[in-house]
């Protein structure tokens, strides 16, 4: 029998140190550990290094709130709800955040290498692009590839020639092993088994690549229930270090079969946080101005939350008005 190490949201986030490298579960506007990111801002963490296969609302919040110094990833935005990540855009232009761009394929390769504990992963994706232009290597230009930071590889990539089957030149992408994996999952078993209810994104790789993993979940369920269908689980209890229970912890991002993405919230966030002043107002209203996550939920209100609640038949809400008809 396994056990879980359950902490409060505040206790879990307090473990994260200034300067740590973080990676997250989810995909753009789905299954992001949003409640943990709000708490990171409340606790005033600084100089964080985010490794993201792709970013979204959760990391726009961390960037906008001044907690991030280094950002590497392939993409930042809210999909059609606000195409560009306006906070990262503002802080890359101002120089407050050092950005290093990857392609999705490169970032996935790096996470997979970290997950299986090999120092690099070969890929032929996205060659011949400025992602590989040494002049655009953000971390090298900032002098960060000197080998002193164990979370930053000494080279962004290496070109190598296949010695086995003469497939020609391709890239070796270095592994990444962040300090913390912050994972949102709708269900965790009482022995720590983790279930997601749709696309698994990169969650399994992030679990294994990170030194320590905090899972924030809607509910703890009997492990016996999850073990009836082992193929649907994405992590075993011994891959999880800490568990936090927090309902609606991914809001305004969505969690399939629990709730839909809150499109109005995300659209409004993207439109109103183009300026720092706009972000500060958002943060005062939704992050610093509420005493905890329960007060945040009360502020959202029953009607909004019930509208977002997913159908158990399809996994998404049938009550959300999405278009003009």
């Amino acid at each position, binding site marked *: 029998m396994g056990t879980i190490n359950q902490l409060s949201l505040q206790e879990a986030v307090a473990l994260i140190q200034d300067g740590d490298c973080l990676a997250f579960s*989810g*995909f*753009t*506007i*789905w299954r992001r550990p949003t409640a943990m990111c709000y708490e990171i801002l409340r606790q005033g963490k600084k100089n964080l290094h985010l490794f993201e*296969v792709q970013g979204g609302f959760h990391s726009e919040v961390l960037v906008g709130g001044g907690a991030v110094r280094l950002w590497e990833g*392939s*993409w*930042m*935005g809210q*999909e*059609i709800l606000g195409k*560009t*990540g306006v906070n990262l*855009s503002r802080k*890359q*232009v101002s120089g407050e955040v050092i950005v290093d*761009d*990857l*392609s*999705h*394929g490169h970032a*996935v390769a790096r996470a*997979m290498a970290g997950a299986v504990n090999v120092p690099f992963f070969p*890929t*032929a*994706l*996205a*060659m*011949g*692009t*400025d992602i*590989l*232009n*040494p002049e*655009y290597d*953000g971390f090298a*230009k900032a002098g960060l590839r000197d080998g002193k930071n164990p979370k930053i590889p000494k080279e962004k990539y290496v*070109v190598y020639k296949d010695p086995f089957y003469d497939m*020609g*030149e391709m890239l070796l992408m270095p592994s990444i092993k962040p300090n913390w994996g912050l994972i949102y999952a709708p269900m965790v078993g009482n022995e720590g088994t983790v279930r997601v209810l*749709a*696309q*698994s*994104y*990169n*969650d*399994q*790789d992030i679990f294994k690549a990170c030194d320590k993993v905090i899972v924030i979940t809607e509910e703890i369920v009997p492990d016996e229930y999850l073990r009836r269908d082992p193929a649907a689980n994405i992590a075993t209890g011994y891959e999880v270090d800490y568990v936090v229970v927090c309902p609606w912890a991914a809001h305004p991002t*969505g969690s*399939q079969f629990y709730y839909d*993405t809150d*499109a109005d919230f995300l659209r409004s966030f993207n439109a109103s946080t183009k300026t720092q002043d706009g972000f500060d107002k958002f943060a005062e209203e939704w992050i610093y101005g509420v005493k905890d996550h329960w007060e945040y939920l009360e502020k959202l209100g029953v009607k909004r939350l019930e509208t977002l609640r997913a159908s158990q038949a*399809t*996994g*998404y809400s049938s009550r959300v008005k*999405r*278009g*003009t*008809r």
Partner: protein
Amino acid sequence: MTASNEYAKVGEFKPMDLLAAAAAREVIDGDVVFAGTGLPMLAIALAQNEHAPNAACIYEAGSIDGRPIDLPTSVGDARCAYQAAKCGGLFETFYGQLHAGYVTLGFLGGAEIDKYGSLNTTYVGTHASPKQRFTGSGGNADILSFAQRTVLIMVQEKRRFSERLEYVTSPGWMVRNWPKNEYVPKKQVYGKYSYGGPTACITDMAIFRFDENGIMYLDTVHPGFSAEDVRNNVDFDLDISKCKGETRPPTYKQLEILYKVVDPEGIFLP
């Protein structure tokens, strides 16, 4: 469906309807399509409901050959995964599908494009002093590098059809062989992984294709525009000599499918 296969007349369709129909016509029955949010979703769903019932759609977040009954608004949406053949994650889609060579058709957009079909979705300005950041690559660079055919969806503006991109996010038919920094045909960099590249570009004014040297030329202009209009909205020297005339409008049947089956909620077709 009761509507006919006759072409709708100007005034009976909106610009977006024409783009969706044009993009859908790029889908061949049996294609394995790697698509993103928005117009590509309309195009693949229209094609599947019309001439390409055996086309399968991969969304990069992990759903493979889903059968959505409601139009997704995100590639990570639960709607994409409905009735999917399988559902994994990004390692499956980018390596198990794309790198493995299964993907025959991609749909992509960008902020800037050059005459070889390279795209910029990252930023404008210089690295030392960027003026504005966009989204970054996401899967854009990967899909354009490995899909056999890619259809690029762009807004027709002179500043977007650039002689030289401020940042090459995704590789067209001519690329730089980093870290050597020589400008060479894509094949020279990709070698045995040369599966294809950009084959068409659809804008709000015209459709472009690429010649044997990988250079973009004007193929058709949408109703209401001339080849000169298009040339005036391109920053590089554009070949208009092969222009075949007007882009075919959507048919009444396509309009019916788009509004009654694909997007009845009015998400992308208000």
